[in-house]
């Protein structure tokens, strides 16, 4: 029963996180802001799973798309609206806008909007914890665009060589701005790259938050014992894209940042397949409820 409660709670959080993003989206553009916000529709499962595995002594480093982690860590809609309007700064304690926003009291101590910048800072924080003999996991979130930077290779090499044990979470949405992976490079085999550097590799896909949470728990336990470095590649889809017509052609415009078109939001943010964590969470939620009723 306890486990069912935990599972339900995680899936509830995914649905709530989506709603909070919608609320912010609605309000921020009514109020008007010049701060660019990178919404993370479709990224909810990994954010909730990671936040559920983040005790206060762990540290989290985030990239420019970070709204989902802040909400999952407990920031309210009002907190973020205030941060984005540079009105009050209740979660970061400083005025940082959206792309550098951090949440130190919940472990999110550094956020960078420069691709690959946070990867090496994570190695220093991990080394600092080691020097201070503090047993904590260092999580660093990045994306499939940032791993093209040399800093990704350098940081993996450093973290692995010096047993710093950083856990790199790669949100792979297949896009960098409006370029797909296929547009810009050959496909990378992160598993093989990890293997060559003595780094452990784990892939997460399917957007099932409680499965993600269980896997991250195991990774954290192993990491604290072995100080091994990890790459956790998360396959996900950034929702909110839409189609437009250009002559006779239909053209797909992916969602990157800022205001999403309302039609697009209503039509494509909620998808009826496993690309949408909310769809999965609603499905699992119903299944668990049915199971509980039967029992």
């Amino acid at each position, binding site marked *: 029963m306890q486990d069912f409660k935990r599972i339900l709670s995680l899936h509830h959080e995914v649905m709530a996180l989506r709603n909070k993003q919608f609320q912010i989206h609605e309000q921020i553009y009514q109020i008007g802001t010049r701060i660019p916000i990178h919404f993370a529709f479709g990224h909810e499962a990994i954010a909730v799973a990671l936040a559920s595995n983040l005790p206060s002594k762990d540290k989290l480093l985030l990239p420019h798309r970070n709204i989902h982690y802040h909400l999952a860590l407990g920031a309210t809609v009002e907190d973020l609206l205030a941060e984005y309007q540079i009105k009050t700064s209740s979660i970061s304690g400083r005025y940082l806008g959206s792309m550098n926003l951090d949440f130190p009291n919940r472990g999110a101590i550094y956020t960078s909007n420069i691709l690959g910048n946070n990867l090496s800072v994570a190695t220093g924080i991990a080394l600092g*914890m080691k020097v201070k003999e503090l047993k904590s996991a260092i999580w660093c979130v990045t994306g499939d665009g940032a791993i093209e930077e040399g800093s990704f290779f350098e940081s993996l090499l450093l973290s692995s060589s010096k047993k710093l044990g950083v856990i790199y979470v790669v949100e792979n949405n297949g896009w960098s701005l409006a370029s797909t992976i296929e547009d810009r490079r050959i496909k990378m085999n992160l598993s093989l790259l990890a293997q060559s550097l003595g780094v452990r590799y784990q892939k997460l896909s399917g957007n099932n938050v409680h499965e993600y949470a269980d896997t991250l728990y195991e990774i954290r336990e192993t990491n604290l014992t072995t100080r091994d470095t990890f790459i956790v590649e998360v396959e996900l889809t950034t929702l909110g894209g839409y189609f437009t017509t250009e002559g006779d052609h239909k053209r797909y415009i992916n969602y990157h940042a800022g205001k999403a078109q309302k039609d697009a939001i209503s039509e494509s943010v909620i998808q009826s397949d496993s690309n949408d964590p909310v769809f999965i969470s609603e499905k699992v939620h119903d299944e668990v409820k049915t199971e509980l009723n039967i029992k």
Partner: protein
Amino acid sequence: MNSNFTFSSYINLKLIEYVETLEHGVFFGQNVITGSRISGLGAHMDSLGNISSFNTQNSENTLFGMGFGLSIAGVPSIYLMKQHDFALLAIDHMVNTARLLKNHSNLATFLVLMVVVDSGYEGPQSNLNNLDDLYSISQAKISLLNNKNAIDYAFKSKRKAFEIFAISQKSLKCALCIEESLTTMDGFSVSDGLEAPENTEPVLVNCGIVNDAFESCVKYLRQCGVKFQIARQIEMNLEENNQLMKKLAKVKRKFVIFDSSKSINKISTHFSFTLKEMNSQVLYLTREDHANWSRVDHDQFELDNRTVLDFLVSR
């Protein structure tokens, strides 16, 4: 006057004294605890119990990021860098990470000790030989370890979250110069009594890391019996440095500014401007042959001492 110390042995002594004040820390860089280290810099650091010392991979960008991460984690660190050209790979961290952290609290000091390659004949690359550009983009505190007074001042100063100490490659193994008559003011080593209102002697202002042409001109002018005062820049800090210029320009006298830095973006330009704005007579001597900065040569700033003499004795 020269001491029994070389620049590198004196800096090592000061580094050890600094590290001994720390509860814990990290000393790192490429080849810093093996072989001849970096021209002897960093000797004995690996024998200190309170810090962790290690050689690193060749990843300057990531090593800067690591230093900033250590700072956030509250662990002081020293990164010893063989040549400051390598720091160009870490411009993102020096600019973006450093600025982001400026309003963080409880940061430990991340100190980068870098060797400025000014010895010439390195090829068109490794020929940067200036700190002005790094100062401009990073806004970091940069200390120029160009004499004993400068080294003492740099290590005695209140530590900041991110600092650069720069040392000239050609000075490293030279005997350490001691100029007894110099005191420290506004980021300069200055002659005693320089600020006194009755002191109207001309001032020779030296900017940049090391300037042989300046030293040679000082000798020449002394031989010629010309009286003058000296102000050597030992810390790059535009506001503070300019304060000194403003103080000195209150007295009517001449200034000669020497700057051997290979930058079009020199901090000394501001000094010249400030002095001229206050109606001082200024002779500003810099490298002007931009097109030749990538030439493979001795990399010396050359000037005609006679020009300086004529300026100083003219009415």
